[in-house]
């Protein structure tokens, strides 16, 4: 990364500069309508030629009052709003809110529903990472991996459709369980998909991850150290890309994650057989590659789910019968889960009625995006899409 030009502040103007090729500075408005801002993010860049001296993100273009709505509807009615937040990971968002409400009210979840929930949140993690990886290639100018990823994602969406009828905003995982039981041959189809999908990950690696130009574009770009990552409250692949082996599924197992055997991938220094030269811990490539590795781990978890899932119980069903009549106690709860983008937290405060007094979502994209101001300094203009893409923000969740 060309770090030779210091940011322009009055104190440094008199100091000798390493590269004195500065020209007039220019403010460039990137977004909210820009192809690589993944929605309606607006970043104001202070540039000197191709150098970006400062980048300030502005958000709020997709604000849809989701938290205010949460104070007006019952929890089971609010579930459809949660999957409109992070629309690429609807299952995980449903799960987070459902878990928060269940923890607050003490609702029991049937055993089979727990397995279904874990399975679908992991499937959705794969689907979400496929979009992240594909669009990241798109940001780098590689068009083709994007369509390969969407090809596989399409099959996942078929699986979701077979279970709940929806392809994007599922509302499948709901308070007290899941809305419907699995379709008849789901286990077979799903394991067939996994058999098909696992070798495809190598394809993505060959096509994109280890592509020399791709490594040159993303290696050692937008580096965030482990300490800074924790200081900024980053989470998910962005945190793990910085070499912090922290995953809520291991750190504080919710649902039934303690029953499964899986690994938590982290960003590693380059120069080994797996990680190419030119990669450092915490750069864009590490964050990207953590997502690729996480798909492998998700496949592992889903296989274990498919193996262990208990048979349907006619009496119990897959959803707690009290889910629509439950009253929220005068108490509060904060529940987080590991979303594909990081820690998705729901703060729910009840007041004794059926409608929450306050619902607050802690969006992982919201917290991950705030590091852009810090990472997007003194880099080239072409690095800004690289950094934004590696954060993998979903603006629906940032703005809520």
């Amino acid at each position, binding site marked *: 990364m060309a770090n030779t030009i210091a940011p322009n502040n009055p104190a440094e103007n008199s100091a000798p500069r390493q590269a004195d090729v500065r020209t007039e500075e220019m403010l460039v408005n990137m977004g909210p309508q820009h192809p690589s801002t993944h929605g309606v993010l607006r970043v104001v860049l202070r540039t000197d030629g191709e150098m970006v001296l400062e980048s300030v993100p502005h958000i709020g273009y997709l604000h849809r009052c989701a938290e205010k709505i949460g104070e007006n509807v019952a929890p089971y009615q609010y579930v459809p709003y949660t999957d409109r937040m992070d629309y690429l990971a609807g299952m995980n968002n449903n799960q987070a809110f459902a878990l928060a409400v269940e923890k607050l009210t003490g609702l029991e979840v049937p055993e089979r529903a727990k397995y279904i929930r874990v399975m679908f949140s992991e499937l959705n993690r794969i689907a979400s990472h496929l979009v992240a990886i594909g669009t990241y290639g798109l940001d780098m100018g590689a068009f083709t991996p994007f369509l390969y990823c969407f090809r596989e994602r399409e099959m996942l969406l078929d699986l979701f459709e077979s279970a709940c009828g929806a392809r994007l905003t599922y509302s499948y995982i709901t308070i007290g369980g899941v809305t419907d039981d699995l379709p008849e041959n789901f286990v077979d189809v799903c394991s067939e998909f996994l058999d098909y999908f696992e070798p495809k990950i190598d394809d993505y690696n060959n096509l994109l991850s280890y592509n020399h130009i791709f490594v040159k574009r993303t290696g050692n770009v937008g580096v965030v150290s*482990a300490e800074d990552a924790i200081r900024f409250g980053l989470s998910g692949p962005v945190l793990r890309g910085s070499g912090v*082996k922290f995953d809520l599924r291991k*750190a504080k197992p919710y649902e039934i994650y303690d029953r499964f055997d899986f690994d938590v991938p982290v960003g590693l220094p380059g120069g080994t057989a797996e990680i190419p030269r030119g990669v450092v811990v915490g750069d864009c490539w590490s964050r990207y590659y953590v997502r690729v590795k996480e798909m492998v781990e998700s496949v592992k978890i889903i296989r274990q789910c498919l193996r262990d899932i208990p048979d349907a119980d006619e009496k119990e069903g897959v959803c707690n019968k009290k889910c629509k009549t439950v009253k929220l106690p005068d108490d509060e709860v904060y529940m987080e889960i590991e979303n594909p983008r990081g820690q998705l*937290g729901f703060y729910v405060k009840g007041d004794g009625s059926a409608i929450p007094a306050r619902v607050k979502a802690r969006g992982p994209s919201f917290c991950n995006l705030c590091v852009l101001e810090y990472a997007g300094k003194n880099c080239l203009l072409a690095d800004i899409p690289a950094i934004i893409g590696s954060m993998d923000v979903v603006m629906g969740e940032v703005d809520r």
Partner: protein
Amino acid sequence: MSFEEICQVLKSQFGDAIEETAVDSCRPFVTINADKWSEVAAFLRNDDRMAFDFLQCISAIDLLAEDKLACVYDLAAISPVSSTQDMTYLRELAVRVVTDRNAPQIPSVAHVWAAADWHEREAFDMMGIDFPGHPNLERILCPDDWVGYPLRKDYAHPLEYHGIPGTTEHELKSPRH
């Protein structure tokens, strides 16, 4: 370190700055006086026994019945950093800081946890809580010239913003609420 032990340490350190410890809650929290919050936050972050280095979330809440506003800080300690061992939460703590509803002010902790920067801006935008000491306290989700604080319980939705109607003709004729 359990919640009770953390409360003990805080009480011995700050005495009456600790206003309430809600142990029986679904998620126990400790209420801290807004005037002392700045020092307590620095202590929570820097003291070796505490070392809460990870700010998970700041949730602003409107306690209309008590005529108060409050912020709930969810803190966690996850250090030491490791890239080989699975890390866990060493301890967690929820802190509630209550402030007056008419002139809400809570000292900013953006210099303690960098993550607090945007969370505090959001609380300012949505609840109108002022955070003295924040480097750049502006509205974050709403436009800069928006009137009112949308998440307050007594917020009245504007009927018009720069010529854009905030409601439809149909709703005006037959209001739902």
